[in-house]
């Protein structure tokens, strides 16, 4: 069970590490604030409570930068 993560220069396959693994769990693992990001699942905007499925492409876009 894996998904593709696209975030800045990252483009990699990652394992889905638990049942009901959500985008929020992924953001926590990456130690990035959900407040500064928007997430796309297979090209469509989704909220952070969305569960990641096998084969998904998850793209994270940073929308808030300091300064």
């Amino acid at each position, binding site marked *: 069970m894996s998904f593709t993560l696209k975030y800045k220069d990252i483009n990699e396959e990652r394992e889905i590490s638990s049942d009901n693994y959500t985008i929020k769990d992924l953001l926590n693992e990456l130690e990035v604030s959900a407040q500064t990001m928007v997430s796309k699942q297979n090209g469509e*905007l989704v*909220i952070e409570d969305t569960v990641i499925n096998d084969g998904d492409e998850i793209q994270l876009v940073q929308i808030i930068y300091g*300064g």
Partner: protein
Amino acid sequence: MKCSKCGNPKVIIKREQSGQLLCKDCFIESIEKKVIKTVRKEKLLDKGDKVLVALSGGKDSVTTLEILNSFREMNVIDICAVTVDEGIDNYRQDGVDIAVRHAKRLGIEHKVVSLKEEYGITLDEIMQRENHKGSCSYCGVFRRTVINKAAREMGATKIATGHNLDDEVQAIMMNYLEGNMDNLTKLGAKTESKAEEFTVKIKPLREIPEREIGIYVVAKELEVHFDSCPYAMQSFRGEISEVINQLAEKHPTIKYSTLRGYDKIKGILKNELVKDYAHGRCEKCGEPSSNRLCKACSFLEELGCD
């Protein structure tokens, strides 16, 4: 989970402040309606206005342009735009290119003004000087001067900036905590200067949270420059922003209530605190100034660029 408005299961945002869930179309519509409501409530536009959008190519200014353009399409206003190229290597050019493309897409009058052409020095060059006063001081002053000048040259009656709810709440708290009551009275949706050379400034996005503007541009697939200025450093504004965002996690309506509270006391503050402005002129450039030199000319003199 379904959109609170239309029932569409494809929800793209959960608004913590209201518990509302929205799909893409309803979210885009809600942002545009809210901005239009602010424009009407605060009387930001008059029919026949020519509005100069300060267009950096970032999410806030692109959103401002996009939504104000709906008033242009209804023939209520005309729009032009200016982009200031501060001269920051590996950062500014992308924003300038994006701004040029948006102006072209919408068919609006647009000019790019570089600090190098205007003052003979870039921000990068200023930052190499010893004893500089910090990038944001120069950038803020020069940008403001260039935008005011462009407004006069392009015949604009209003200047629209992309200040959002987070920016405005940070400014309220910063000025209050620093005891800077003079600046505190100058905030608001529409700032008017007594000097007629300064064009009226409007902030149509003042009630939209920064994060929602980010989601709006991604949802509308608007090309914007998402990047951090290399000179952005740990500023007081950054510290204030962190505290407010921390508070907002448990108190999601706190940014709105801070803004509402300020709007209620603003009139009283102005009556009590606003000083009579000196109607002087900068003896070098002729811009309005209460001192011998305006801030921009005084910086240029210090930098030896006069």
